[in-house]
């Protein structure tokens, strides 16, 4: 019996330890609650910290997506691919913001239509749900903002001074594209003669990615829009009375000689809202993409190519933007048509150097 009792005592000891262990775990488990009370007493600094962190992420980080494609180029129906939002051109260029990312972030024009919860999950990252207002103003432009109206008091605040990178712009006078004359003879008995030609702009990836150009001033059509402006077309074509009409019948994009398939509605490419690879305006008036563009009396033709990685499959790839032109001539004679190839690179005399514009980014958290 004594030996059995001593065995029971050891079991009691085990039970005692178990009780102690349970109590110990409960006590330890209460400790985080003690720290929570301390944290809640410094709620103001928590809001300021969140505002500071959010501002720094936006201004200094370029964002990241789950599939490696820049987050701003994700299809509009796939916002879940965005892991983290950021507005910087790259991590090498803190506080230099990308206009494409700014448009997508502020949903101007409407694209991702992210909800407040999605902004919180992809940018604020706090365990505690916070209200926010993130506003941005570039010099000379309207203020953009997301979030709720800022309360009068009790919010965390962060201000970041930034610069916005401009798009690469090639501005070509039409006269420089119409140097050579073409002799037209109308067929016997015909009232008009249809003449077709092309004028192209060549974007060389090897030249545009020149490492001697700092990233903040580098043109990258894979991630940034490229703009072509042809000015004074009316002063060249418009003054030739024998030309009754001049139109751009179509626009073709050729990567290393192979035509790039124009994306169809519902596809994932390209990145802009209407699945249009480019937009074109004549004297400020937008032209329906894919339709003919009448240019005979155009003062300024502006062509904006939206970025896409497929344009440059290799490091030395070249993209050709080809305008297929059609002219209607009513009389015989020598005409000056828009034609030829023009390089779009740093060596071009027509390239306007990239310019940075001041802006300010404010983050309010409450």
């Amino acid at each position, binding site marked *: 019996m004594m*030996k059995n009792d*001593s*065995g029971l005592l*050891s*079991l009691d*000891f*085990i039970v005692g*330890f*178990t009780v*102690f*262990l349970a109590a*110990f*775990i409960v006590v*330890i*488990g209460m*400790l*985080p609650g003690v*720290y929570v009370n301390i944290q809640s007493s*410094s709620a*103001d*600094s928590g809001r*300021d*910290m969140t505002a*500071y962190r959010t*501002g*720094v992420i936006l*201004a200094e980080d370029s964002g990241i997506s789950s599939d490696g494609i820049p987050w701003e180029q994700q299809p509009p129906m796939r916002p879940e691919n965005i892991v983290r939002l950021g507005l910087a051109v790259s991590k090498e260029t*803190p*506080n*230099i913001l990308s206009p494409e990312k700014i448009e997508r972030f502020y949903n101007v024009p409407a694209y991702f239509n992210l909800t407040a919860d999605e902004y919180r999950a992809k940018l604020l990252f706090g365990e505690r749900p916070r209200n926010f*207002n993130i*506003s*941005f*103003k570039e010099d000379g432009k309207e*203020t953009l*903002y997301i979030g709720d109206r*800022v309360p009068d008091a009790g*919010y965390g*605040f*962060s*201000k*970041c*001074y*930034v*610069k916005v990178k401009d798009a690469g712009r090639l501005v070509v006078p039409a006269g420089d594209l119409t140097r050579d004359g073409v002799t037209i003879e109308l067929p016997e008995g015909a009232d008009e003669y249809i003449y077709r030609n092309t004028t192209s702009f060549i974007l060389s990836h090897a030249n545009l990615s020149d490492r001697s*150009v*700092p990233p*903040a*001033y580098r043109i990258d059509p894979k991630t940034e829009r490229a703009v072509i402006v042809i000015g004074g077309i009316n002063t060249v074509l418009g003054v030739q009375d024998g030309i009754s009409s001049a139109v751009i019948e179509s626009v073709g994009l050729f990567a290393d000689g192979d035509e790039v398939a124009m994306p169809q509605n519902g596809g994932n490419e390209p990145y802009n809202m209407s699945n249009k690879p480019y937009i074109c305006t004549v004297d400020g008036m937008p032209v329906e993409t894919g339709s003919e563009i009448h240019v005979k009396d155009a003062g300024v033709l502006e062509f904006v190519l939206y970025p896409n990685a497929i344009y440059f499959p290799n490091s030395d790839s070249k993209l050709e933007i080809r305008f297929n032109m059609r002219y209607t001539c009513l009389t015989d004679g020598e005409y000056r048509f828009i034609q030829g190839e023009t390089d779009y690179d740093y060596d071009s005399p027509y390239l306007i*150097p*990239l*310019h*940075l*514009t*001041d802006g*300010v*980014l*404010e983050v*309010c958290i409450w």
Partner: protein
Amino acid sequence: MVKVSKSVNSSKPAFYTRECGQLFAMEGLIAAAIMITAAYLALGTVILPANADMHVSEMQLKQIGDDLLHMMDVPDGNGGTGYLESVVYNASPNRGPVANSQAGAAFNATFINYLRKSTGATINADTLRYSAAIYCVDDSGEVVRLPFANYGDNTGRNPSVCCARYVAANDWGLIGQSSSDTAVRLEVLLWRD
């Protein structure tokens, strides 16, 4: 415990001996479990305090000042010079007092304009003040402080933060001393009025 074990070993059948051995092992296991659990939970509750938690106000000023100097030093176009570089060039003492004064005034105008920038989402109270100075090295190797520009006076009652940036300074020189292409330290003390 040791005595009990010896007693059992000396006088009891083999199965009692095994039972006691199992009990001691259980105690050891429990003790280990307690230690591991305690260590796990204790480590899991550690919160590392960040300095920023205690200096949020200073951190905001520091960020504003550093951002401002950074943006003022970034050229707007490739191959150009940043604003700070051009203004520091004219602040070199060997340019003369008129150029120095104009450089200080130009810096003031630009810096204040930046400070007042706002998106309009909040009420932008114009409460930030600053004092800027340039530090350079003279021919004897001594660091020289040159007052440059200021906006408001800090009587010492307002806590300020120091933001600084090294700026390229071409043909920089003190009066009566040699000049060279160098870098000077532009330091801005920033505080809330």
